[in-house]
Structure formats: structure tokens, C-alpha cells
């Protein structure tokens, strides 16, 4: 299973990078969303996908899924959510101020050169 997941994650990264390299700000943020999905799945996969039961006691199971990667991913999900929310509002504000979402038009000003 891990082998197949490695390819799926590679595909997610590929799509994410392709989107991040685009012109539209919204697509770049969508790309970062895909990137964090890929990263989260990567952590989970690298921790090993074996284990019969969720990491909760009282199930009577002998092997649990590894709890540590799950804790790490939980932290990562929340942080990436915070950052994504911030970026989205930033993008929204920059539309308001600059009237464009094309980053090839956002090159700063020459005033300070």
C-alpha cells in the first residue's frame, strides 16, 4: 500500500507545484492546499499504514496504528489552516487594493531602487 501511496503523493506534489507556478493568486493558494494535503499524507504513509485498530485503548486490538504521525499531522493541519486562512484574506485584500489577481503584474514599485 505504501508504494502506491508514494506515487499518489508524488502526483499531489506535481499538481501542487504546477498550480503554484501559475499566474493567478487564487490558483497558487489552491496549489498550497494540495501541497499540504500531500505533505500530510506523506507523514502518515511514512509512519507506516499497518495496524489493525485506531490508536485508542480499550479496543482489545493487538496492534495500533502509529499515534505519533497522527499527532504531528493534527498539528500540521491546524497550522496550515491558519496560514491558508491568512493568505486567502491577504489575497482578497490585494484584489481590493490592486484590482488584479495576476502576480505577473505585481512587481513592486521602482520607487525604492
Amino acid at each position, binding site marked *: 500500500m505504501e508504494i502506491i501511496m508514494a506515487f499518489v503523493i508524488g502526483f499531489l506534489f*506535481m499538481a501542487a507545484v504546477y498550480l503554484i507556478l501559475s499566474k*493567478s493568486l487564487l490558483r497558487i493558494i489552491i496549489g498550497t492546499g494540495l501541497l499540504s494535503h500531500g505533505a500530510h499524507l506523506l507523514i502518515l504513509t511514512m509512519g507506516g499504514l499497518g495496524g489493525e485498530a485506531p490508536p485508542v485503548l480499550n479496543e482489545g486490538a493487538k496492534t495500533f496504528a502509529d499515534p505519533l504521525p497522527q*499527532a504531528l499531522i493534527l498539528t500540521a493541519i*491546524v497550522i496550515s489552516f491558519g496560514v491558508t486562512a491568512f493568505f486567502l484574506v491577504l489575497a482578497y485584500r490585494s484584489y481590493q487594493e490592486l484590482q488584479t489577481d495576476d502576480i505577473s503584474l505585481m512587481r513592486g514599485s521602482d520607487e525604492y531602487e
Partner: protein
Amino acid sequence: MFLLQVLYIFIPMLAAILVPFLYKSIKNIHTGWFVLAVPATLAIIYASYIAKVAKGEVFQAELPWIPSLDISVVSYLDGLSLLFSLLITGIGSLVVLYSIFYLDKHKEKLHNFYVYLLLFMTAMLGVVQSDHLITLYFFWELTSISSFLLIGYWYTRDASRFGALKSMMITVGGGLMMLGGFILLYLMGGTYSIRELIVMAPNLVEHPLFTWSLVLLLLGAFTKSAQFPFYIWLPDAMEAPTPVSAYLHSATMVKAGIYLVARFTPIFAVSELWVWLVTAVGLFTLFWGSFFAVKQTDLKGILAFSTVSQLGLIMSLLGAGAGAFHVNGAADSVFRFAAFAAMFHLINHATFKGSLFMIAGIIDHETGTRDIRKLGGLMSIMPLSFTVAAIGSFSMAGLPPFNGFLSKEMFLTAMLALKEFELYGFDTWGALFPIVAWIASIFTFIYSCYFVFRTFTGQYKPQQYAKIPHEAPIGMLISPMILAAFVVIIFFIPNLIGDTFVKPAVQAIQPFLYDAPGDIDIHVSAWHGLTPELFMTIGIVIIGVLLFVALPKWQGLYKLFPRSLTLNNAYDKIMQGLDVGLNRISRLYMTGSMRHYLLYMFSGIVAIVLGTLFVKDAFSISFEGAAPIRLYEIILIFVLVIGTATTIVAKSRLTAIIGLGSVGYTVALFFVIFNAPDLALTQLVIETISVALFLMAFYHLPKLGKREERMRFQLNRAIISIAVGVMVTLIALSAHSQKFIPSISKYYEETVYSLAGGGNIVNVILVDYRGFDTLFEITVLSIAGMAILAMIKLRMNRKEKAHENK
């Protein structure tokens, strides 16, 4: 007592602190009078060492600076250091005296001038007395910096700033090379002390770093001492006030390189390369400088080229002196003259060149021009200046009864000896050395005459001068007259100078040949019989006179020399080329477009990671320990891939957002299947909120929303993104296939109830085992919330914005 010796070096620097206060508070008295006390006192102090050093004694004092790194300021006074220290303080006193009359106390910023000058004095004393390589370098760079400040003293003039920058670039560049040479020396010898390195010199020759350190050190010496092709900064440094030119660019700083070569001769002289480089570069510089001095039209320009040429002469003598290490019975051979002649001419040059610079300054001061084409007929108006100039010039040309004659004879002796030197291929090329030296001496004779006669004889045309010329005030003439007096005195008592100053210095240069300065068996005499040298000198005078008389007829030759082939032009082109070229390069990749930068980063990451994988041969796939493949997962993967593909190919942003949402929910389902209930919960909730936020951002783009277009396909983007995907897959595969240590999660499973009192292992890890992560994750969320609030609420209106930028 011992520490005092180190302190002497720093006296000028400490005195410099007082200068601005004296300048500001005492307006009536020229600040130079206070400054004069510093070098004069030091000269007296150093003079008190003369008798002991002449007997072969050395004095050493050490002031620890960074003891843990073995760095300290070591003052080591032997014949060589003392000779230079006396030159620095002695000529320093005369130059300060001269500057008192040269610089106007009302018009000039005297405090700047004297602070820089005193700083320079400390730096120079430090260079010649340091026995420690690192502190020697420290003082060396201080001379470059203070020289830079002095050349740029009239900083409102373009030429001053250009000259200062040029000399800075070249000398600091050479200084850095020298630092490299020093570090290599330390690596070879294991000590920073020059004395200790000299003792172990025979063992250093075989070291593979030896040649590198030799070349780097010589680069430092050649740039500082204005040797070919690095001499180009010196003529431009003539924009400095004349006292500075007289002091730095004739008597002291340019001789720092000479000092360096002399000081390191005992270490490097065993090398063939050293003998060749020092001799050949010196001799070529001698010829080149003297040849182009005749072309100059500016008095100080002539003197600058003549300094270059004379420094080349001293340098070639030091090279020949290094040859003495290879001759049997050097103490009896003619080679013993070389090092002696070098030091002797060093003293002579300092005396006559200092006085000539001062005269050039006087002429500039009294007539308003330094252009030799406008000057003429000043002999009867400025008789004292003329006398001094004539004495200096004839000494420079090598005529009796002046000291230049003696050193010129010894120089020719040494060059003739090189012809006999049979090692290192000198028997093939050695014959060229005396010939080049002879031709260079003829040109020296010509420009010396050119300097005196074009300025002081000829027709007097008052209308050409900006001011009405008259003799300089006596105060201004004191210093050059003292120096000129030395020029004559040294001719009559050369052996007194030789015994007291030159022989101790020679012993420092050739320590293996002599045990004490008294052993050096050299007696200088003005009349030394009908030797080849004397005939050569007669030839120089005859041909020199003929050529000088015919000068107007052949001076046009210089115009044939194309401007585009000069070294100055090469320097300008290099600097300009660097400026333009580097700008072009940075404009090439710094496009201002974020996509380009992201492209660089991604390709960099891919190249580094894949390269490492390839070099380390780390590719591997192992199915061992992998979980079984089930139908559910295959279906989910299918959904995930479709969702992802939708985000890429979607024409509308809305479709892309929904595609992203579907990927998020599929990931949540993956979490369900892979036994991660907490993750599934969180992922579901957060994906929902995220999609809502995306939709909000999308909804608030009324104008942009209509102009939907599909992403244009770009090949480089596709290649990079596929490469990143492949890279991630390969890493995942390799990492998964090479597990060496079992997980630590067994510990959590065993102790989650007994130690933490909980059943949900993930939650207990989050709040108990690794609670700190959670604390700061909460902080991240709060910061994001506050930042979003700030972004929406706080806005500057346009007026404030315009104001802010002003």
C-alpha cells in the same frame, strides 16, 4: 619598559584623538605645531636605539591581544625595523613642518588632515615593527585606509575621489592576497612569528603550499609598492595634498612592499621563483617607470613615475640580494652589494624624493600651476627652490657629488654580478639585466633633467602664471632644505650611514650570512677605481645629455603609444566591465517575477535531492512490511486523482475550488481508512471552513470573476512540476524501504493509561506528552486571527499613504 616599546607605535593614534579638540578650541595657532611634537618625539626615542642596534642587538616587546588565538601585538626592533621607523618619524616630522606652511589654517579642515596623518603614522610604524603576521596585516590595511582618506582629502574634487578609490581597490586587493599568503605561512610553520618562521625556513621549502604563499605575499608587496602592472594607482594618488604625496607616496607607504620583501627574504630567498620574480619585476618596473616619466607634463606626475621606477630599482636589488643565498661564499662575492645597495638607496630615495615633492608643492603653491608646459624661467625668482630641486634631481640621476651616485654605482655592480650568476637560467638571460638597467638609468637621467630645466630655466613668461611667482616663505623651505642637505652629506660620509643604519638592516635581510652587523665587509667610496660601472655612468651622462637636448624632436614618439593599450585604460575597462556585466547578470535572473524565483527554487531542490540520491546510490524499493492493498483504498485513490486533475485542468476557478474540496474530503476518508479518527474529524471540519473561505475570496472578485480562462500550458512548468513529483515519490520509496530503527510509539501505547490516565493516544500525545507543540499551534491560530482582523480593519487612507512615503 618593554611594553613601552609597543606603546610607541600607538602614540600617534592616541594623539590623533586630541587633534579635533585642539583644532576647535585653539584657533590662533596652526594645529600642525601641536602635531609636530608627536613624530619629533618618536624620532628622538627611536634615535636612542641606534647605537645598540648597530652593535647587533634586537629589542622585542609583546602586548597580548587575543591570547586564546595566539594573537598579540609584537614590536620587534632590529636594523631593518629601526631604519624604517626612523624614516617614518624623521620624514614625518619634516612633512608635518612643511604642511604647517602648505595648508592654510583658515581654508582647510586641518583636524581631518592631521587625524588621518597620525593614523597613518601608527599604521606604518606597526607594519615595520610587527613580528606577528596577523597584526602586521592589521596595520597593513590601516595604511591602506588612512592613505585612502588622505588621497581623498579634497573630497569635493572628482579626481581625488577617483584616485582614492583606485588606490584603495588595488592596495586592499593586494593586501587580501597577502593575508592569504600569511595564513598559508602559518599553516606551514605553525607559528605567526616571523622570527620563528625564519629559523625554520629550510624546512618550509619542500612544503606544497610554499609556492602559493610566496606568490600571494609578493602580490601584496607589488601592489603596495607600485610595481608593474600595479603601479597605476600611484600617479592617480597625486591628487592628494603635496605633503601627503611626499610622505606616503615617496618615502613611506610605497616602501611597505619593499619592507615586506626585505623582511621575508630569509624565508623565501631559497626559492628560484622568488629570485626571478623580484628581480625581473623590479627591473622591468624600473625601465617602464623611467620611460614613461619623460612623457608626463605634470610635475607630480613625473615624480610619481620616477618613484615607481626607483622602487623597481630597490626591488630588483632585493631580488639580487636574494641571489646571494645561492652563491658559495656570498660574504666575499659581489652579491653582498645587492642588499646593501637596496637599503642604501632606500635612504637616499627617501631624502631626495621627499625634497623634490616638496619643491613641486612649492612651485604649485607659488605659481598656481604644476603643468611643465607652462612653467619656465623660475631660476632667478626662486633661487632656493632651484638649488634644492637641482640637488634632488642630480642625485636622482645618479651624479656626483650626491648620494644617488653611490647607490647607482652599487646598483650597476649588483646587476653586472647577476650576469655571472649561473643558477636558474640566469646564465642565459642574465646578460639582459645590466643592459635594461643601463637603458633605464639613461631615461632616469633624462627625466631628472627634464624636471629641473623645464621648470627653472628657459623663458620667463609672467602672463602664464595665475599668481605672481615669488620665492616661498622660509618655513616651507626648511624641510626640503634639510633633506637636500642630507643628500649632500650622505655622499661625503657614506660609511657612517652604512655602519649605523644600512649594515644592521642588511644583517636582518641576510641573517644566514653574517653573525653581526660588524661582519659586513663593505666600504663605500666615491672613487672606486676605473671599473665597468664608472664607464657605464659616463655613458649614461653622455647619451642622456644628447637625448635630453634632442628631446623636443623625439618626445612625439610617446603620442604613438595608443591610449587604448595603456594599463589605466585596462583598469577602467575592467571596473566598468565588472559594473556593467554584473548588473546585466543580476538583471538576467532577478526579473521581479515570483514565478521565475519559484522555478529556480524548485529546480534547485530537485537538482540537489536527485543528485544526492544518484551520487549516494540511494534508490531502492522494498515491499517488506508494507500494508496490504484493499479495494476501498484503490477507489479513494481514483477519486483523489480525479479531484486533483480537476484543479489543474479546470477552466473556472470555482471548479478548481470544488476540486480542492473533493481532494480534502478524500483525504479525510483516507484518514478514516487508515485508522486515524481524530484526523478525519479535524480534516472534515477544516476542509469545510477552508472551502468556505475560498468561496468567499472567489465571490468578492466581481470584475475578475467574469474573465475566466484556462491555465495556459507551459512546458517548463510541466517539466519542473513532474520532476518535483518524481522526486517526492523517489524519496518516499527510498525512505520507506530503508527503515533502521523501530518506532518509539510502543512506549506511548504502554504508558498512555498508566502514566497519563487517558485512552486516546493521539490526544494524550497532543496535550500531555508533547503539549508544547499544541501551545504554540494555538499561538499560530491566534496570530493568524489577529492578523486577519488587522488586515481588514486597519487601512491607511491615501493621504496618509502619500505622507508616509515622504
